[in-house]
Structure formats: structure tokens, C-alpha cells
């Protein structure tokens, strides 16, 4: 993982939130009660909670970038404590920091706000493949990331909100009310428009835009805190001790395998495939987060997040792990060599091939995952999903 984006190391928590509530009012109290410098602790740890002590004691503070030798029995615990839990801890803490910053300064070009946005968005991209359990409750993942927005719902929703009457605008300050808004008005991609797209931002007076920036940032903090809380207060144990949501260790591994596939699919089909379009019809404005020039960055972040997960799932099969590592090395080197933050070069025939080649690298990776790793984990290459009718 690129160390330059792993900013703001966070101290290990001694305990997780006591009785963490998912209601926005409670979260607001905890988020605003403590300064950003305290990192995760602003998510309101006030005392040890027995059920979480184990998690807190073993979970890393950062997502792992390298994978030690693992035996099959250690896979799930390693992925939980070195990948999932630190990923969502980081997401919650960076999002809390984003909300904190937005409430101090909401000028769109304030470097502190833009940096806080970048850090929180990075944290989301590192976990956005983990689309099961806590992220799927209450539409949380969509509330954080409504992308791709193929029908232009986000700018529509933003224009409408920016031109709303005073009463509606006043309502943005109420997190519980804002959480009932359309997902198109919430999350990182809506915030990106407000920070980086003048045609949207300047629809309204700065005060109106400011209110909306604060509402979205606060909402992101509440949503990510709720996801984190659910992971720590129950869902992690569902993975550790199958029986309820999962029937066996094998099913848990299959869920994690699916998450790997989700990440690689997002990478290939969405982050690369959508802007590439057809050779005769490149679609540069379909690149993810091009307004903030984060398109290529997200591709690199995704590769960095997928590699440890893939290697951990390969576990004892060192030959397969080597094969995966080589395929990731290839894709990572290709992504590192690209010098096109927004992927605008999809329209330039002489340069487009570099992005096409990276897509091919990702396709090769997916092939190894589907044909080698899947069967090892007892996952048939989707009899229906790959070949339906």
C-alpha cells in the first residue's frame, strides 16, 4: 500500500465504544465531543466493553500490506484483525476527522478540508469491496458511495438541495433528518461535487453550500461509525464462530472470496472498463472521481487492498500465492507507471493502450482468482452467475 496515503496513524484503542448507538443524535454527541487529534477515541470509548476486548487487543490499527505464512485455520482471524477491522476503524476515524474539519472550515478550497476529504475517501476505497453484513444494513454502502451514478442523480439532487428554501436548508443541520435523504445527496461522491465542481457549488450562496458540505460530512461520519460499531459488536464474531449467519468456516471463506471478487470486478468493470468504453467511444467523464483527480489513485488503492486479501485466502498454497503475487506485481507496476490521474488519455489512441493493458492485467488476475483460488476454497465458478440464461 502506498505509504503516502496512510496519513494520521491512530493510537490503539483500549476499548471500543460502550453501547455505541447507531442513532445520529448519539453519534453526533460522540463525534463532536472530542477533538480530532484523539483519533479513534472520539468515537466515544468511555469504558471497556467485555465483548469487544478481544477485538481491541488483537486488531491492527492499519490494514496489513503484507501477509505472513498462514494455515487455513488462521485465515479468517487474520483477515478480520489485519484487514477488515482496521479498515473500518480507519474509515470511521478518518470520517470523524472529516466531519470535524468541515465543521471548522467549509470553504471548498481549504487545504485542510480537501485533505480530510482525501483521507476519508481513501479509507472508504480500501474497504469498499467488503460489501456484506454491516455495510449492507440500512443501505449504508450506498449512502457512502453512490457510484457509478449512471443517470446523473447526484448533480440533480445537489442542485435541488442547493436551491431549496430556508426551512429545508435548516433541516440539513439535523443529522437524523439528513440521513433520510436520497443516497444521491449523501456520501463521498456528492461531497466531491461540492468541493471540486464549480458548476454545482456555485448554484447557491456559499452559506448554503457550506451547510450542505457539513451535513454530508457529518452524515458520512455517522454512517461509518455505525458500520464500525456493528463489526465490533457482533459481526466479527459471526465470522469467527459460524452458526447463525454463516453455517461453516467454509461459508465464511466464501464470503471473503466474494469480497475479493467484488473488489476486482469494481476495478476491472467500473474503475477501468467504464471510462475505456469502446475504442471508438471512450468515455473519460465516466472515470471515477475525475473532478478531484482521484481516478488512478483509486485504482492503485484497490490493487493495494486486494493483494493481501487474495494472498491470505491462498494461505498454505504457496504456489498459488506466488502466482497471485506475480499478477499483482504486474498490475501494480503498470498502474504505478501511468501518469494520468483522471484517465483522460482513454481518448488518445496512442496512450489509451496503457490503460487497456492494465485492464488486461486485472482480467488476468480475475482469471487466476476464479479458476485457481475459487476451487481451492470450494467455490464452483458460478454455475448460474457466470453462465445464466
Amino acid at each position: 500500500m502506498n505509504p503516502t496515503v496512510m496519513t494520521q496513524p491512530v493510537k490503539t484503542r483500549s476499548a471500543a465504544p460502550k453501547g455505541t448507538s447507531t442513532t445520529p443524535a448519539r453519534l453526533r454527541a460522540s463525534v463532536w465531543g472530542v477533538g480530532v487529534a484523539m483519533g479513534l477515541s472520539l468515537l466515544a470509548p468511555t469504558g471497556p466493553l467485555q465483548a469487544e476486548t478481544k477485538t481491541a487487543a488483537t486488531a491492527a490499527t492499519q490494514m496489513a500490506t503484507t501477509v505472513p505464512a498462514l494455515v487455513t485455520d488462521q485465515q479468517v482471524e487474520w483477515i478480520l484483525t489485519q484487514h477488515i477491522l482496521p479498515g473500518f476503524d480507519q474509515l470511521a476515524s478518518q470520517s470523524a476527522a472529516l466531519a470535524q474539519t468541515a465543521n471548522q472550515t467549509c470553504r471548498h478550497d481549504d487545504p485542510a478540508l480537501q485533505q480530510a476529504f482525501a483521507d476519508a475517501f481513501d479509507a472508504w476505497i480500501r474497504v469498499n469491496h467488503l460489501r456484506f453484513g454491516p455495510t449492507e444494513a440500512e443501505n449504508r454502502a450506498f449512502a457512502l458511495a453512490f457510484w457509478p451514478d449512471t443517470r446523473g442523480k447526484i448533480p440533480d439532487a445537489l442542485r435541488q438541495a442547493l436551491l431549496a428554501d430556508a426551512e429545508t436548508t435548516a433541516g440539513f443541520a439535523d443529522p437524523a433528518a439528513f440521513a433520510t435523504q436520497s443516497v444521491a445527496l449523501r456520501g463521498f461522491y456528492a461531497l466531491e461535487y461540492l468541493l471540486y465542481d464549480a458548476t454545482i457549488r456555485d448554484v447557491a450562496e456559499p452559506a448554503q453550500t457550506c451547510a450542505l458540505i457539513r451535513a454530508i460530512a457529518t452524515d458520512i461520519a455517522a454512517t461509518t461509525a455505525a458500520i464500525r460499531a456493528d463489526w465490533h459488536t457482533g459481526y466479527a464474531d459471526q465470522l469467527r464462530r459460524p452458526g447463525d449467519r454463516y453455517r461453516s468456516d467454509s461459508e465464511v471463506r466464501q464470503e471473503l472470496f466474494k469480497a475479493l471478487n467484488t473488489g476486482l470486478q469494481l476495478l476491472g468493470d467500473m474503475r477501468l472498463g467504464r471510462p475505456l468504453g469502446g475504442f471508438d467511444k471512450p468515455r473519460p467523464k465516466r472515470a471515477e472521481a475525475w473532478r478531484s483527480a482521484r481516478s488512478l489513485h483509486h485504482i492503485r488503492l484497490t490493487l493495494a487492498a486486494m493483494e493481501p486479501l487474495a494472498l491470505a485466502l491462498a494461505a498454505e498454497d504457496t504456489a498459488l500465492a506466488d502466482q497471485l503475487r506475480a499478477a499483482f506485481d504486474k498490475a501494480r507496476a503498470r498502474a504505478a507507471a501511468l501518469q494520468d490521474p483522471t484517465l483522460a488519455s482513454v481518448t488518445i489512441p496512442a496512450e489509451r493502450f496503457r490503460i487497456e493493458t492494465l485492464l488486461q492485467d486485472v482480467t488476468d488476475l480475475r482469471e487466476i482468482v476464479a479458476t485457481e483460488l475459487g476451487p481451492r476454497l470450494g467455490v464452483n465458478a458460478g454455475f448460474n452467475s457466470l453462465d445464466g440464461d
Partner: protein
Amino acid sequence: MGTDAVSEARSKSRPTASRRGFLAGLLAAGMAPQASWADIGSPAYLAAGRTMDGRFLLAGLDHTGRILFRHPLPARGHAATAHPTRPEAVAFARRPGQFADVIDCRSGQALTRLTPPPGHHFYGHGTYSPDGNLLFTTENAFETGEGRIGLWEASTTYRRIGSIASGGIGPHDMRLRQDAPGLVVANGGIQTHPDSGRAKLNLPAMQPNLSYLTLEGEVEHQLQLDGDLRLNSIRHLAMRADGTVGFAMQWQGDPGADLPIVGLHRPGSTALLIAAEDPRLRNLQGYGGSIAFSPDGHEVAVTSPRGGVVQVADCASATLLREHWLTDVCGLATDRSGFVVTTGQGRIARLSAGAVKDPIDHDLAWDNHLIPLL
């Protein structure tokens, strides 16, 4: 087809009461036929599948999901349909297959094998006429690309007696209408030819539709969806007792489009698209695999093996009620208490009161559809 076949179709096809009602009537009158669905050993469901060593079969399952019989198939199967009175069913080849096996559902024993005429292949679905004297099969007349409905005499011999136009290209699922005599056909709109396997030959021009046909082959009503939805192939159907048709679509355009996958329709009215503005639409990944109504008809469910999800929606408000996550889920049927699903990982389970219940895992991969028999 000849006019004789047409008149035969007309003369022998009348709507009747439900199979259960029919049976109850016969039994009450003390005149049950020699072989009926009431016989012990008849399965509750049929499903095609693939064994671990790569062979194909049609299985009969009881209400708890246990396998009662396995009928080997020469290649991959798809759907099946049950005779309204005799304990008999037809298992169809998956497109572009050219076999349909008629089996005795008490034992799984093969009775006969149907082969489409030269120049035709099956699409994998079919249905009997209400009296069981005719079998209808969706077919591709692949030299012209025209969708056809094959007609088979089903009272004794399963003789081919002709075909009628399906009303479009790529007829896939097909049901008997409940509001009037006739058929409703999902013309998926995608042209294929066996020489090029399952390659889609006409995506730029595709135009799916839902066609309501008389048994003489006239199109009485047709639903076409406009605009972006032209690339949404109408594939699978569910029939509610009041004649409302549920249809599930498969998106052929760019991935990531947020277009509805399920709709409800009644002839003569516009379609009601389900969850059209709900972001969870994209959890289906543009692909509806099977569709079914709840026992009371208030809910409609769709499976997406690509998304590994079943979505259940409220029919009246067209809003999404809940999601169930199951890897490679595709087969779906109405159950007494809700829905039953099957997966490519061999699982069969009930969806009841918002939860996945009573799962049983079999050592095979269940194919796209689960066909309820009783």
C-alpha cells in the same frame, strides 16, 4: 403449421380450475384416474442440475428439499413444466438444446424424448394447455431468427403438430394466461444461431417484448418498453392468480446502469416497474434469474445469481422490502409459507418471515430454475 393443428388447439384448450381443485373434485367423486399427482411419491419441485463429475440431470424434490429421483439428461437442462393432471413433466434442454424429456414424476422414469423439427431449437421453457392435451414449447427457427411456439399433442403421443409465431425474437419463458385463454410469452429480443453458440447477434437492434397470444397464434396484446429499457431483455415470467404477469429482465447494456429488472403487467395497461429508484437495484447486477409471487400474491421476488441476492418487493407500492444473500442463487418457486430457492452450490432453502430457513445442501449444482409441482 396446418389449419388442423390450429383448430385442434382451439378445440382442446379451455381454462379449467386449478389442478388441486380438479383433483379434489375427482377424489370426492370417487373417480380418481389411474395415475395422478395425488399418488404417493410425487415430488413437490423439479430442478435441473449438474453433478460434481459434470453430468446433467433433472431431480424431483420433496417439500423438505430431499431428492426423490434423479433423471439423467444428455446435456445441460433448464426449466421444466408439469402436466395439469397426469403425474408427468417435461424437462427442457437449455438453449440451444434439442431435447425435451417427458418423465413419470412418481419414479423419474423416462417416458419419451421430444426433438424439435429441423431448423428449430428449444429455449428451455414450455407449458401445457389447461386441459393437458397440448404442450407448448418456446423455440428458435434459427435460419430466419424468428421466435416460434412449438405445438405438441400431449393427450397420448406427444406428436408434433405445428408451431405458431411467438410475437418476437428469442422467446424464452412462457405461461398460460389466467385472465383469458391464451399464452403470455417473454420475447427476450436477442437473436442467436447455433453456429455461433450463444453469441448475441443483434444487440444494437434488439427489441424485447411481452406478447399475449391466442392459442391460434394471434397477438392480442404486446408490451414493449421504451428508451433505455430496449436493452433490457424480458426473459422470465411469473403468473399471479388474477392474471397479473411478473417479468424479470436481463440488462444487455453497459454495466452499472441502474435500470429496473422486475416489472408487473396486465394486458391493456402500462407496466409497473419495481424498485425503479432504489439504489439496491444495482445489487442485482443487471440480471434477474427467476421470478415468483408470494402465496398471497402481495409480494414478488427475483433472484440474481450475479449479485448472489434475492430481492423481495411489495407489488402494490413497487418498493423493495428485503434482500436475502445466497451465493449463486437462481432457482425460485412459491412455497406455502413464502419462497423456496436453489443455488449453484447445491443448496435448497426456504425464505420465510424474512429469513433463510431449513437449508439442505446437495452434492450438485442446481441450475437456473426451480419448478413447483403442487
